[in-house]
């Protein structure tokens, strides 16, 4: 449940996006939410697999690991207007781990930012859907990302700008665990804590794998919750594939006194048996046959 003060603050914001009504995540209401987000997640996965399969290149592993997180943000938590992407009061989302662009595109298309048919032109010459997010080409993309370790800084800048203007909007940034080897992440972590950016929430897609292998074998990230706490962030830990846990954590983050991070334990390649925890599918597209097999596993789609 959102704090009363915030509900009050947004009481006159008619026409806001999904998830603005505030919700107690228990009972039948919660079960309905769970069912809705799980259905959406399954369909998003189908779109991700299909779009990368058709493109013949892309990053399925880290796209599939963040599906429930994005579903929770775009279909429960964030205030946004797909028909008016520049709506000044919208919440902002930054995909700091830009290679998960297919997941973001699938979500944006499903929200109605652009025609779903665009998904099948991913990575093609002239497509609005670039290999990594491009804010100038794709409606709903707040800032271009792809070079790792920069999106969280950009999110800090957005949070600062929104606060300067006295706007109630919140900023969400999805960070990868491999990405957390970039020094820039920790520069941003320091600045956000020093500035007490309570309108900033990071979500860490903690799938444990990076291109060269397991993070703990490439360069260990150590005790991530302790690290973030010591940097002055409010830390929550959730199962990154449990939609209700994600939604509850996102709600709790509203009340943070400074920047907050939700460390989401996830499975790289989640939902497709032969991609799960398989480092080979970090940046490799499924073959046509693998794509069909994956779609079969993911069940009926729309």
């Amino acid at each position, binding site marked *: 449940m959102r704090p009363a003060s915030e509900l009050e603050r947004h009481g006159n914001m008619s026409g806001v996006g999904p998830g603005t009504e505030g919700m107690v995540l228990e009972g039948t209401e919660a079960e309905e939410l769970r069912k809705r987000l799980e259905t959406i997640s399954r369909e998003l996965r189908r779109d991700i697999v299909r779009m990368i399969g058709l493109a013949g290149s892309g990053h399925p592993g880290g796209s599939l690991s963040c599906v429930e997180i994005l579903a929770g943000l775009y279909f429960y938590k964030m205030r946004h207007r797909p028909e008016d992407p520049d709506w000044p009061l919208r919440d902002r989302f930054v995909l700091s781990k830009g290679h998960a662009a297919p997941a973001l595109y699938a979500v944006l298309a499903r929200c109605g930012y652009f025609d779903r048919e665009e998904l099948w032109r991913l990575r093609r010459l002239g497509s609005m859907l670039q290999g990594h997010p491009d804010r100038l080409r794709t409606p709903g993309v707040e800032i*271009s990302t792809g070079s790792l370790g920069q999106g969280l*800084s*950009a999110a800090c*800048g957005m949070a*600062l700008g929104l606060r300067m*203007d006295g706007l109630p909007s919140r900023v969400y940034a999805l960070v990868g665990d491999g990405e957390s080897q970039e020094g820039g992440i920790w520069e941003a972590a*320091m*600045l956000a804590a020093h500035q007490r950016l309570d309108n900033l929430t990071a979500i860490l897609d903690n799938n444990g794998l990076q291109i060269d292998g397991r993070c703990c074998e490439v360069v260990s990230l150590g005790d991530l919750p302790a690290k973030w706490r010591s940097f002055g962030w409010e830390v929550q830990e959730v199962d990154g594939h449990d939609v209700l846990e994600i939604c509850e954590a996102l709600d709790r983050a509203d009340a943070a006194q400074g920047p907050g991070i939700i460390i989401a334990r996830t499975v790289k390649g989640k939902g497709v048996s032969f991609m799960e925890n398989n480092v080979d599918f970090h940046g490799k597209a499924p073959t046509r046959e693998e794509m069909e097999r994956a779609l079969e596993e993911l069940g009926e789609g729309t």
Partner: protein
Amino acid sequence: MTEWELRNTRDGYAEALLELGEKDPRIVVLDADLAKSTQTEKFKLRFPERFVDCGVAEQNLMATAAGLAATGKIVFASTFAIFATGRAYDQVRNTIAYSDLNVKICASHGGITVGEDGSSHQALEDITLMRAVPRMKVVVPADYFEAREAVKAVAYLDGPAYVRLGRPKVPVLFGEDYRFRFGKALVMRPGRDVTVIACGYLLHKALLAAEELSGEGIEAEVINLHTVKPLDREGLLESAARTGRVVTCEEHTVHGGVGSAVAELLAEEMPLPMRMVGIRDRFGTSGAAEELVEHYGLGARHIAEAARRLCHGDNGGKPRR
């Protein structure tokens, strides 16, 4: 010999920021623990709510600037030129420029004239780096007034811009009434024999060189190329066509800098004899600014010599008229 009044280009920047901040609430300034050096501290004291010190973290400074600009701010991001363009190159390229955001990178301590701090702090490649980034505009003001007016102008140009400011005080060449025209090369002194193109610290040296050459019967046309990108193609070609010879001057590497920019234009449109005064594939070193200008062959006499050799041909002899 004329006594020149000396003022800092970065003071012109600070003055412009105060003016901009006064009339436009969208103006936000970021620095990376160098506010006293870059002179953004003046803005910080006047508008503390619109100033953010990012600490010793230039990469974060640039990407944070991009995020602020994405919320509608006009962001000035300042640090030393070496860090702004080298340390944070990827943030500038990928997060600011690729996103086409209104971040104005106003970097002080550009060039060899940083002086005593030595090579680690002397940006000799910053113009090359920024010129290569699509959408980036590059401006190198020559004095206090030009810096002040240039900063006010780039504030309202769409997208990213790089403004190179210096450390030392430089002769005041313009006045209160100076009108900066972005993208327009400015003829400082007309001449028929050779076109001398300079900007920033070396513009004054170019003017001194022209004075020296005039005494020998060589009339140099001195052009202030304050806007290095986009290049004023028409203005430069018009002058080059008249004189038939071009000398470029920069306290910067000749590889990809001002000389390269002019050479790229001339090679395609109007190949003609040309010389570049600048630093050639070398690091900087400690020393006083003026000593370094001499040491690296960037002084008025070096510029004059380059022009002289073009006019006389390498064998000496009479000017080719």
